[in-house]
């Protein structure tokens, strides 16, 4: 257990360094983007009928807190605030804390991503085993083709297809938002039902997007395990097929656990297309809006969260692998 603690401490230290590197890179990257936060809003005020003087004055008043300090000094201030857990204030939503915006958006990314990922993992792994064991049959072939097909479709194409079929054509599922506004948010059945209904399309999109990868990886892993000596030995010993399948499954699934943990983090980063298509107000949607409005604090906060989630997932994957595969501990 001491070894595990040492290992954990090492991973956390490495993770912190990685976070610092990414925070630094992100900070300078977002500030290098052309255009100031007020530029876009200035044009919108003009369009709303303000004179150029008035629009400039309003921008100066509302967006005037864009710092005039040097970039290095801003970076120092940002790190100091970050160390105290302060992500700063939004520019687009004049003065609203970034943490407030991120916390508002986070559940609408975490829940669909986790649900979609778990569903895809479950179906992908089962499908992969079947596709490997029955690889010479029609069903095995069909499963493999289904995996290759969905793995090759880009996220936005798949999301658009689902939107057209299930909302526009058949009108079975809502296309936007998280719930019906007429229900009181809380632990009541109508609201939970409405949230579930609105989440069906994003969750299915996430699930379909990663299902193919799981299926093909599992199939390949199972096929590899099938050729191992211990499987031949178990067959020769007359061990029951169900038990043999358990041996195969346990050994084949090992590499997939690492990828599963990493996928949680990666899918946060890849939620833009899905959230944009379904107008689902998660972290990806918030990040897209903040980029459009040059909202540096929100951009930095969202990037930070994505980075941290990937790093944490990485550490968990590493540690889990240590636990489930004795060979790694040696």
């Amino acid at each position, binding site marked *: 257990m001491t070894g595990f603690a040492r290992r954990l401490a090492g991973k956390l230290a490495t993770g912190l360094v990685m976070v610092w590197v990414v925070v630094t890179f992100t900070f300078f990257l977002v500030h290098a983007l*052309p*255009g*100031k936060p007020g*530029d*876009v*809003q200035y044009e919108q005020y003009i369009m709303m*009928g*303000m*004179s*150029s*003087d*008035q629009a400039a*004055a309003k921008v*100066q*008043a*509302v*967006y*005037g*807190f864009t710092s005039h300090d040097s970039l290095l000094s801003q970076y120092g201030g940002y790190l100091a605030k970050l160390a105290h857990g302060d992500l700063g204030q939004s*520019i*687009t*939503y*004049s*003065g*609203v804390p970034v943490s*407030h*915006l991120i916390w*508002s*958006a986070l559940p609408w990314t975490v829940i669909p991503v986790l649900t979609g990922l*778990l*569903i895809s993992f*479950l179906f992908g792994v*089962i499908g992969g085993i079947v596709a490997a064991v029955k690889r010479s049959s029609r069903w095995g072939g069909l499963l493999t083709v289904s995996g290759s097909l969905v793995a090759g479709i880009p996220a936005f194409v798949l999301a658009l297809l689902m939107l057209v079929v299930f909302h526009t054509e058949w009108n079975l599922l809502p*296309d*936007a*938002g*998280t*719930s*019906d*506004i*007429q*229900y*009181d*948010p809380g632990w009541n*059945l*109508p609201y*939970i*039902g*409405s*949230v*579930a*209904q609105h989440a*069906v399309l994003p969750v299915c999109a996430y699930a379909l997007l990663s299902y193919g990868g799981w299926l093909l990886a599992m199939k390949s892993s199972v096929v590899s395990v099938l050729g191992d000596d211990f499987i031949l030995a178990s067959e020769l010993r007359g061990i029951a097929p*169900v038990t043999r399948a358990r041996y195969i*499954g346990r050994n084949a699934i090992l590499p997939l656990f690492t990828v599963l943990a990493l996928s949680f983090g990666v899918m946060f980063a890849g939620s833009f297309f899905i959230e*944009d298509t379904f*107008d*689902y107000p998660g972290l990806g949607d918030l990040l897209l809006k903040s980029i*459009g*409005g040059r909202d540096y604090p929100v951009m930095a906060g969202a990037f930070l969260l994505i980075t941290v989630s990937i790093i944490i997932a990485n550490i968990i994957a590493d540690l889990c692998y240590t636990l489930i595969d004795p060979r790694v501990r040696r």
Partner: protein
Amino acid sequence: MSRPKPLVAAIAVATIAATALSACSSSSAKKSNGGGGGGTGGVFTSIDANNKITAGAPMNPFNAAPNMFLGYNEMQMGFSKYDPSDPNAMLPGLAASWTSSDAGLTVQLQPNAKWSDGTPVTVADIKTSLAIAYTQGTAGPVASAGGTVVAGSNFEVSDVKDLGGGKIEIDQQPGVKNLYFQRLVLSAYIVSDKVYGSQLPADIWSQIAAVQGSDQSAAGAAATKLSAEGKTIAAFAPAKDVSAGPFVETRVNPGEALLDRNQYFYAANKISPKQVILRSYSGNQQIWGYMNGGELDYAPYTSMPTNILNQVLGAGYTRMDAPSYVSASIAFNEKQAPYNLTPVRQALAYVIDRDAVTKVGEPVGGIAAPTTTGLVGSQSDTILSGDQKAALNPYKPDPAKATSLLQGAGFTKDSSGKWHLPGGAPWTITLQTVNGFSDWIAASTIVANELTAFGIPTTAAITADFATYQKEMAAGKYAVGWWLVALGPQTDKAYARIYGSADGFSVSNGQATYNDSAPTNWEHTPQTYTVNGQSINPGQLAAQLSVTPVADQQPIIAQLAAATNQELPMIQIWNYTHVMFTLDKRFTNFPKTGQDDLLNNPPGVWMMQGYVQGK
């Protein structure tokens, strides 16, 4: 393999149950809430195109992106009629009537004006709201980055007095004469003193007096203080909505906002919908989807292809058009040759077929600009005389005239039909536009084809986003690009869009100063034009417009229109039309095309005037 089975089963059952449950509960709830109109209420569903809903944003009209909706729960004393012949013309809001004088404005509040908590709207609310406007940079001078005080074309209130009986005197700062004082004051956001008053310091009006005073250092300090207070006000998040409008916000989720009828609204008997649902949207396509399903009672303007228009009309929608006072134009950076030559810009105007471009670029919401004057057609038609209009060159497509103009300027055409600059170099154009501006992008393709066919190889280039576009345009990176002009019914503001900061002119008290190297100056037009044998300074004329009473503006506008038409600092391609749609299934008595004063306002304002009744 035995253990995963219950898990799979549990997940499958839970998923199916949740979906079934949601399907049942949604349908039953929608029935009980009666999406319909009806004499006693119903749900009016729409989209606020200017304000996307964000769950994390506060219910505070002074935030840059608030969950507040004009005409529903965001109130003003009056709402602009957008009348080009009288920009001060207003529809009543919280003010039932008003009289204007040189000293300011006397307002009679609606006799029953109340907040949604049942308390009356008083002079304290008006005073607090106008003081907040100072902190937001919309009412008075502001602190610039350099610490100096910048005077804008703001309304500069110096005092708010209670005359009793709901009558309020609002004084304009002595010595300041803003032609649009009435419109600017009446259209300021009015919020409850009880909710917002505590956010202001007790000495706010002393600060306002200081910023208006002659002591420059005191004014600078006060402006900085006001600006800092403005940021606090903008970030303020009231716990609940207290509105003096026809509706009050009950709930916002990330996709929709729900507003309930305000029983204390001064004209509650005129308001038919019991609830308003405002939906969020990610793009035009989503709005079209809602319309095809008949889900929106009012749909805002969206750039819409003809086949989509036919679909929504087929779904039962009625189209209404009103002037929009915005024109899509192709602008030039005259610092870059050959666009510094007037014959070149004129030749390009003769090549571009604006009708053809409009058909592709903006087939529904716009009409090809008949002339380039700096104003939209409805404005110039109203203001210019018959002779003045007849003297304008419409630049009808005429390749022969374009050829003659270019040859006269020393351009040559080679054997392959390609034009060369006077120095002999081949002439190519990069027409710049912005990602996401679908109408500009579509139109760019047509313009590029037309110019290429004429012998000037033209490429349509796209900038990643608008912030980058503005920065690069200001940096002089584009020689030819799209731009919006003719903004608003106020002619001085329309001309300030051309002969203002983007052209190196800055205005103070009706006087313009010119700086060719100003950081925002990307047009670089000459400071003066010679029009009909007379030298004019368009920046000075535009500045003069801002202090000239509307009744006396005609001669100045005629000069500016003639100069713009001759010199073409930009070519107006199409004038946008404010197109909107209403659905007559659940509600009726919508305003109709021609009632522009109403149609240029949101449906909440229509309701205040007695329109939109349940069927």
